């Protein structure tokens, strides 16, 4: 776990350095709707862009505005300041308006050597599924064409099986996290996802085995309440730490650097690996950028609340994040209907000035749910 905690706090971790030293390419992506199996099947390392709590946005603010989400501004800032110069390309998706703007500005100011736009439909139905399959084939071809690597069915199946195994291991970790005597803090779990999306999956699989073994008998205590956190993209380990430092153990989540990145994906046997991936990624994205499936998102959170015996839910969104800003209101209403206490937080990404206010609100929430 120590290795995960250390490496997850670096943009260019040791695994990326080793990968680059052996002259192999790294491709960036941002959204969990990006099937990384296709990238890895080409012998390319997929790297999920993050800001790691960096709140500096001076360079980015010349391009994006203060009305854009500060997570995207922070990522753009890192990109334009050279922190991501190790990337050999970028995959854009139409995740949200801010994300699109971030990538468009990044590419405008500092052209990516390789750039591909993977278009992800926002409503699941037969025609959009067919369209997404075609999009995945174009994405596959683009990677093959630029990097000169063959991505064949055999390679795709191998990656799909690897991700299936990883998913099972992550589920084991979640069982250990969500059980009555939890074995992980929420901050540790976030660190696993951070590192896991910045290293080769084959390495991640081994690390997960080690972590499961290491934590099998560990139990955490001394916390006031069991919490679930859901909402906007966040890679702020310190934000989770702050919550846990004042007594709220984050025993589950519905974050895209968390359970939403693996749990809902269901493997279904089919002859064509691209069809398998299209269905796995699009059908249960559980992101509010999708329409017509709020009930699925609500059920996902309610199930996690029940499974992990959660006492309170924190719904968080980065200022100006519209998709989560609105969805969190719907979720709050739905959860409160079920008698689940909810704290809705709007915050600036990485903003240290915000810490005091957020801590006070979480403290008050903990007092509310524990009745003292």
């Amino acid at each position, binding site marked *: 776990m120590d290795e995960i905690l250390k490496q997850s706090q670096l943009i260019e971790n040791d695994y990326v350095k080793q990968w680059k030293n052996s002259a192999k390419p790294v491709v960036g992506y941002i959204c969990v709707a990006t099937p990384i199996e296709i990238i890895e099947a080409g012998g390319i390392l997929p790297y999920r862009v993050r800001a790691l709590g960096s709140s500096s946005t001076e360079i980015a603010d010349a391009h*994006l505005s203060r009305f854009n989400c500060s997570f995207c501004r922070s990522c753009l800032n890192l990109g334009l300041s050279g922190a991501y110069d190790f990337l050999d390309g970028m995959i854009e998706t*139409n995740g949200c*308006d801010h994300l699109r703007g971030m990538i468009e*500005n990044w590419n405008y100011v500092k052209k990516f050597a390789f750039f591909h736009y993977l*278009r992800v439909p926002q409503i699941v139905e037969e*025609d*959009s599924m067919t369209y997404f399959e075609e999009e995945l084939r174009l994405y596959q071809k683009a990677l093959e064409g630029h990097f000169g690597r063959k991505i064949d069915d055999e390679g795709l199946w191998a990656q799909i099986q690897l991700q299936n195994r990883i998913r099972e291991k992550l589920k084991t970790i979640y069982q250990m996290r969500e059980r009555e005597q939890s074995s992980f803090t929420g901050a540790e779990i976030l660190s696993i996802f951070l590192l896991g999306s910045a290293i080769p999956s084959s390495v991640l699989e081994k690390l997960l085995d080690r972590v499961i073994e290491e934590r099998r008998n560990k139990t955490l205590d001394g916390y006031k309440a069991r919490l679930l956190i859901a909402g906007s993209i966040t890679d702020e380990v310190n934000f989770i730490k702050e919550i846990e430092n004042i007594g709220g153990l984050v025993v589950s989540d519905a974050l895209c650097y968390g359970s939403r990145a693996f749990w809902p994906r269901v493997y279904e046997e089919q002859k064509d690996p691209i069809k398998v991936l299209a269905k796995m990624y699009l059908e249960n994205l559980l992101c509010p950028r999708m329409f017509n499936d709020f009930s699925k998102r609500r059920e996902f959170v309610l199930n996690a609340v029940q499974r992990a015996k959660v006492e309170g839910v924190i719904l968080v969104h980065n200022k100006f994040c*519209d998709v989560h800003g609105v969805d969190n209101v719907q979720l709050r209403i739905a959860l409160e209907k079920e008698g689940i206490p909810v704290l809705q937080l709007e915050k600036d990404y990485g903003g240290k000035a915000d810490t005091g206010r957020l801590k006070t609100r979480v403290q008050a929430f903990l007092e509310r749910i524990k009745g003292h």
Partner: protein
Amino acid sequence: MKLFPVGLFDRLANQLAFLSIWPAPIVRTFGSLLLKAKRILDDDTYNALSALFAERNKDVSMAFLKMLSKWISSAKNASGEGKKVLLVPFNFPVEAIHAFDKAVPLTSEVLSTLGVIGLKGQGEQYWDMAMALGLPDHMCSANTVELGSVLSEEDFKPDAIISSAPGGCDVNSKIHEFVSNYLGIPQFFLQKPPDDSGKGFKLYTIYMHKLIKQLEEFIGEKMSEEKLRRVMEKANRCTELYYEIWDIHKAVPCPVPNLFSLFLYGVRFTMWGTDEGIETLETMVKIAKKRLQEKAYPAEKEVARCIWCYTSYYFDLAGFFNWMEEQGYTHLGDGLDLCFPKIIDTSSMDNMVEGLALSAWNMPMTRQVGGESMSGSWTEDVIYAVTELNADCVIYCGHHSCKQTWSVVSILRNEVQKRTGIPLLVLQGDSWIKRMTPISVLQKEIDEFIKNVVLRKKAQGKRKIRRSKKED
């Protein structure tokens, strides 16, 4: 009809119903008389009337209000006539709904705009109602003013909501989804693939076919080919008039009053494809042509010609549209005018449905920031308008909720400056709610920009397009 309604829609319906019972000359005279009796009016009403009943605007204002009166009363009387009211966003082609006998469209942004223009309190209480539910303050006021009123459950409730914003605007899509879930109203979607290849449009046409089928089932009426043809032919007439108005804008000084920009897309978003829509546009053309002949302009001279690249400001028509032209600053139109409608082939049902898909594809916002590149099509459209209409500058209103345009306005600014040599001003303000940036501050910024930047550039002849035209 409630005597003292509290909801935005009901209040507007009452006001417009009152206007519609009187013959036009009486309303015209009454409006002018009211302006002379400022003390009996509240500031908000006086402000709106002074813009609408300014000499250069009043004939078109009358036609526009008459048209809106029909639009809103159709929705008001819908349930009594066995019709369904479908709430649509501004980027949905309303002619698709006009083609049904048993359905009427209502556009949420237009209702918000009318509330902001014409109601005491300018609709802010409805915005506050939405905020009270916990919705974030970075929602779009264009939707939230009206939807706040719907959410209060003290106003009309649409029978269904159509959302065509997925792919073009997150915030618009999400607020409509929220209202649908909160009130248990069915919702239908027209998602826009951010794909400028033929593949994207092909899929979009399939979605349009599917949407029509869903609507037919919901409304309980098969869309008739004949009725659709009649509507589309009228829509084609609207298109011809749109381009007539576009062309008249090219004259120097511009004979088209600034407020016509709002009237033009007001028609597009409500009654496109109807007789009332045609009548309003014809009045606009008639007045604009007359002014062209007379070389009429509200100020002594036209000082600067401005393209507003996205929305304008609607909370103070007199302080914005009228004030600008009284300074000699022509508002040549804004991003919402940039829908560039096409003449639709009405020879078959399939062609007409494809035509509807094309119209939806080309609606403002959808065709620009809903494109494959958020800045790409937007830049092309703005530069085209700048070139065609001989603009001296571009101004971005900076409506705070437009995260997509805020995301790429820096690219637009760079490209406009690089390719045309004219400057682009980025303002900050809410287009519908005055509490964010008062009109006096905006006026000052526009004034300083034009005097210190635009006019200097003009004097230095740094405009690339003009220079290259001369060289040609």
